[in-house]
């Protein structure tokens, strides 16, 4: 599935992650900025990718600025930004939780 609009979720506060989705044509591409890239970069990408997969989003550009967020935060922000990008905020995707 492709997204309908560019969307943003999250802040740049410490322990948060800000994720922006915009239209893409080349699968899921993730541009990640993180102070813990070396230790947790792969894990952060995996959480984002797995969560997007639950929305069947397979073509999207992801820009993520991580400030040391835990997996649960990354997942929550990804769900929020995915629903905004799909314009389905009024129908919470409970199964994604």
């Amino acid at each position, binding site marked *: 599935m492709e997204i309908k609009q560019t969307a943003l979720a999250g802040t740049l506060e410490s322990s948060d992650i800000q994720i922006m989705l915009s239209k893409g044509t080349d699968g899921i591409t993730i541009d990640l900025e993180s102070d*813990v890239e*070396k*230790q947790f970069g792969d894990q952060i990408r995996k959480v984002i990718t797995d969560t997007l997969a639950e929305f069947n989003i397979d073509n999207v550009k992801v820009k993520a600025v991580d400030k*040391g967020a*835990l997996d649960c935060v990354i997942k929550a922000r990804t769900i929020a930004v995915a629903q905004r990008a799909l314009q389905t905020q009024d129908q919470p995707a409970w199964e994604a939780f």
Partner: protein
Amino acid sequence: MKNNVNRELPDDVMSALDYKPYETTNIGNPDIQRVAPSVHVQTGDDKLVDSIEDVVKATVKDGMTISFHHHFRNGDFVFNKVMRVIIDAGIKNLTLAPSSLTGVMNDMVIEAIKAGTVTNITSSGMRGSLGDFVSHGNLKNPVIFRSHGDRARAIEHGDIKIDVAFLGVPNADKLGNANGMDGKAVFGSLGYALMDAQYANKVVLLTDNLMPYPNTPASIKQTQVDYVVQVDQVGDPDKIGSGATRFTKDPKELKIASTVNDVIVNSPYFKDGFSFQTGSGGAALAVTRYLRQAMIDNKIKASFALGGITKPTTDLLNEGLIDRVMDVQDFDKGAADSMHTNPKQQEIDASWYADPDNKGAMVDQLDVVILSALEIDTKFNVNVMTGSDGVIRGAVGGHQDAATAKLTIISAPLVRGRIATVVPDVTTVVTPGDSIDVLVTEYGIAINPKRKDLQESLGHLAGVPVYTIDELQKMAAAKVGTPKPLEFTDRTVALVEYRDGSVIDAIHEVKD
């Protein structure tokens, strides 16, 4: 080879530099021989020199060891002024042996390394761009990190032979009598610089405040000084220390601080005449506040507070809750000013403070110390030197030295953001777990199993959950996940000495 904290040390570097691996925290009672500096005899009438250029020309030659102190911290102008002249003079192959390196010096050190001016460094620590530069293998020879007490030991042993010490002071007379208390850029205690003044072959004072002769009180004496140079400004007073001390409002830090206080108050050491040392971090300052109340409530006074001093500590001195402050450096203006006015605040040099090879150092008399940690592992080993990315970004400071106290408390959050503080193995061992007694986190405490006595006195405090350190480590991992191991090359970029001069760990070049 492996040392006694299970660290693999590089055989080639160890043998080339004639180092022994760390074995034990026990210093024992060896007989040692101290060294003495050479003295170029004069009456003292011609010490005043017009410019840094002239004094560098007269003193610094290729291959020498030069030193500085870091009492001006990030307000230092002296280091950059002198190094500029030394680099421009084309001098090569120097060993840089300051008491520590602060951020304001980073660019100049990097330039000096690139120019071949500096080829060896020994320091308490380094941070920021310089730590990054060294961790990426840009200095050929490994940096030697030493604690403040170990630097004093190394100077007294002759392991560090300072040819020329460039010491900035906020006042001096024309013969070199100087202190850290009067003038514009004042920092209080000259504790670390006193080693250089006593042991360097040539001592150069730089000051922006030439006083009538004789200038007293004299911490550095005319008998030690070869040259006095007048400069326009030695430092920026606003950047020397933190300004007015603000107590933390961070609930996590307050929780840790109140638990540290519970640990101290319920330990066997909290009795009239006890002694303590705290650092300058937010939690440490809050501990001082809690401890003050506990001392008043229990009618207990401390015989002395030690180490790097802050205003909350000198306030306790003024209140009569502490009898003496033994002051090797001052972290804020309040503490620096207090040294001037209160004779019970004694300036001490780094040897008196913490040198293990001594006829008794202050740290040997210390009951309680609160220290911080970037990482602590399940063996209680502490890292205050390398960050979670493996890059040098810290300093040994007095950590190893003060940790010899009877009750050594590490106060640290369980996790910082996504980085666990309690880990299976620290990236770099700076202070061995044998010196650490209690870890305090916001979730609870862990007591070193070697301290059965503390298990008894601290094992059942109301509101202070006790965990094993393995449990705390697992708790941290459950929150943040398991990080991918850091990658390093085989190249040794630094060695960390234990305070006795043995090697406790090696730091390797990071792989990017």
